[in-house]
């Protein structure tokens, strides 16, 4: 049974368990289940985008515009519900769709106009946060405070709980499940892998790789839209600069999760585990008295070490194999 679980996911799982043990020993409050579960609130937007960015990375692409879509989606929610007076849930739907629209623009330009994903999503990053800033500017709301005064029910979305489980945890698992099923149980998911491994071969096999790639970016945009809404609900206000500092952690959870940055390999289970690992580390370090700013150091080192390890691993194995077969030939 254990053989079926990819080794890297196992490693991540073991690290999470170690984290719980070590941080708990440093500060027993860490062993409090409700604190651990509530910590999901802090990283659920990162995880949500991470799940769907994983799909994009599997096709061999990249999407760094998600961090700006968070702010845009947040502002759209605020603008439509607070200034335009739309029903809050209708505003939420519009905000998520706005994210999808941004993803569509990315996807069309990357898949059909064949521009590098990095360049387009960099432009998108400027453009989408620019639009968010413009919306805030035109609406006359203070940039610092943003839109406030959301209804109680909206705040409950991220802060409430069902059957003792914080909603953040539930949102985490719902989106994980969607991404998991899409990637690992559907034809579309398989096409994502095949496109990422070899787009030419996929084309020759009759797969519409451009549509597949475009869809991945749309999903990534939608997920960033959801993340923006969740963050707005959690923090109780809508601001254009939400998510600005998430680029590093989002990429870290995807890469640390074992998804190959060159595409074709990886999965959302790894991303989910990596985001929990990162989230627990953040709260653990905080509880251990380490200032928040220092967490970037740990993240950065973790990122380099994990990628170096994942990258060197197959080479290393190959070398070992070579030495062994060489000996056999000699003997």
């Amino acid at each position, binding site marked *: 049974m254990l053989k079926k679980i990819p080794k890297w996911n196992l490693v991540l799982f073991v690290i999470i368990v170690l984290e719980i043990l070590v941080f708990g020993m440093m500060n027993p409050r860490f062993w409090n289940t409700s604190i651990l579960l509530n910590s999901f609130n802090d990283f659920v937007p990162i995880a949500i985008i991470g799940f769907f960015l994983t799909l994009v990375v599997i096709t061999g692409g990249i999407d760094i515009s998600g961090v700006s879509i968070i702010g845009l989606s947040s502002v759209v929610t605020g603008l439509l519900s607070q200034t335009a007076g739309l029903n809050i849930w209708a505003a939420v739907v519009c905000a998520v769709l706005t994210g999808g629209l941004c993803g569509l623009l990315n996807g069309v330009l990357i898949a059909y106009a064949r521009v590098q994903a990095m360049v387009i999503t960099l432009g998108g990053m400027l453009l989408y946060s620019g639009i968010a800033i413009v919306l805030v500017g035109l609406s006359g709301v203070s940039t610092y405070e943003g839109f406030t005064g959301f209804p109680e029910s909206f705040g409950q979305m991220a802060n409430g709980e069902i059957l003792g489980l914080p909603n953040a945890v539930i949102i985490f698992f719902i989106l994980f499940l969607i991404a998991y099923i899409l990637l690992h149980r559907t034809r579309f*998911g398989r096409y994502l892998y095949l496109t990422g491994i070899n787009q030419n*071969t996929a084309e020759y*096999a009759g797969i519409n790789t451009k549509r597949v790639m475009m869809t991945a970016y749309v999903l990534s945009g939608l997920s960033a839209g959801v993340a923006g809404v969740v963050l707005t609900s959690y923090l109780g206000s809508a601001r254009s600069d939400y998510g600005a500092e998430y680029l590093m952690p989002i990429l870290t959870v995807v890469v640390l999760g074992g998804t190959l940055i060159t595409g074709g*390999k990886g999965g959302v289970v790894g991303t989910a585990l990596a985001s929990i690992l990162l989230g627990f580390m953040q709260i653990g370090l905080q509880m251990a008295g380490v200032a928040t700013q220092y967490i970037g150091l740990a993240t950065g080192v973790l990122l380099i070490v994990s990628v170096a390890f994942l990258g060197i691993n197959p080479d290393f194995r190959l070398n070992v194999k070579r030495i062994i077969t060489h000996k056999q030939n000699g003997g």
Partner: protein
Amino acid sequence: MTGPKNLVRLEDIRKSFNRNTVLQGITLELNESEVISIIGGNGAGKSTLMKILTGIYQPDAGTIEINGERANHLDPNAAHERGIYLVPQEPLLFPNMTVEQNLTIGFRKNKHGVKEESLKLIKELGWNLDLNRMAATLSIAEQQQLEIIKGLLRKSKVLILDEPTSTLTFSETEALFRVIEQLKNSGVGIFYITHRLDEVFQISTHAVILRDGQVTLKGKIEEFTKDMLIQGLLPAGSETEYKNQFERRAAERTGEEPILKVENIVGDGFMNISFEVYKGEVVGLAGLVGAGRTEIAEAIYGINRIQSGKVYLDGQDITHFSINETVNSGLAYIPEDRFLHGIFSIGSVRHNITAQLIKRHGFFTKKKAEEQAAIQYIDRLKIKVNSQDDEIKSLSGGNQQKTVIARALSMNPKLIIMDEPTRGIDAAARGDIYSIISELKSHGFSILLISSDLEEIERISDRIYAVYQGTCSVCLSLDEINAANVMKAAFGTYKGSDGAYG
């Protein structure tokens, strides 16, 4: 010391890739002022031999001597320094630099001198190369010219030209030959790799024929005739074990509707192509590399556009279908370049087999059905794997190819186009693939076989169309198929069955 100075001496060079023997003991010598034509089919080992000489590959055994000195562990730099320069078939230029920058890069010495020299060379050659143009805008012939000038600028004593004329026009070729003549007179030794027999007699002093990694014919050009060269290219004897495996039948097809009917199609790389394939028939598309066979196949399959003409599959017009549509209508294609277009290298064997099949499974993938399909094809095609979860790149070339064939079969096609199905795979797997073809044929599948392997296409095909420089004017029926006729047709010299070899 008497006689001309020796430039290169290769002795008993052997090389194999993954148990696939490419060179089995080549001995060659090149002296000053010699032009040695190296002729051979695909997979004969020409390029490998030249890559060994230029230090790109290391030989498994054998010795290389350059200017009388032994050269162990040659690398590209050392080869350059010893005056060996390869003008590759696919130019290795910097597309975003100008012609001048491409010529001067890598030189330590005065740029201006290099420029003057190149200008002089271009003028001498009578070529029309603008030094200020971007390399990306050059035609392939011009890129080739640029590579040749790069070699000449380096004052190389040994120049290797790998099919330099395959993309040159008539007058450009003439100019090149004048250069070769000049170089020869100034003492340079040249290895000239070619498919074109006329050229061999026009410019070379010696000819060497390679077949299956061995030299089968070697000597001064005066000693040979064209027919002798063709004979040398032909396989020795006919002891091949799979000969009788194929029950071939002559076309008695009057009134029968063909499975594939190609009518006068025109596209990039080919012109006015027409042919038919009937049910249960293996039709060969013979020709040299670059003749346009792959372009024809890709256009039929829907990868490239067909400008005019019609293609019918089982009566259905598929001329302007997309790949997805041609696949659904019953066409399958085994691509020429397995690594680039055939396999999903880091994907599992199962996912490689079912890449097309899952389309029929609906929105969700069906793991059970996929596993069964994988088991079925691994069993039926004798694909050697430890588990169907193995990465396909860990398999041997032959097993990779079988996996690609399995994927094609999974869609239950009416016609399979196989483009070089046995390239780069070992003899045993080759035999397996022939049995697969034979079995498919007996089950009524039709196959369009594209192959540069003369022996293969000659023995398997029921009929053969020859493609020569993008046109197709020769069709050999079963009683006309023999090695000599196929070879002549591929080289564009077939003038009807004259019975001389029949």
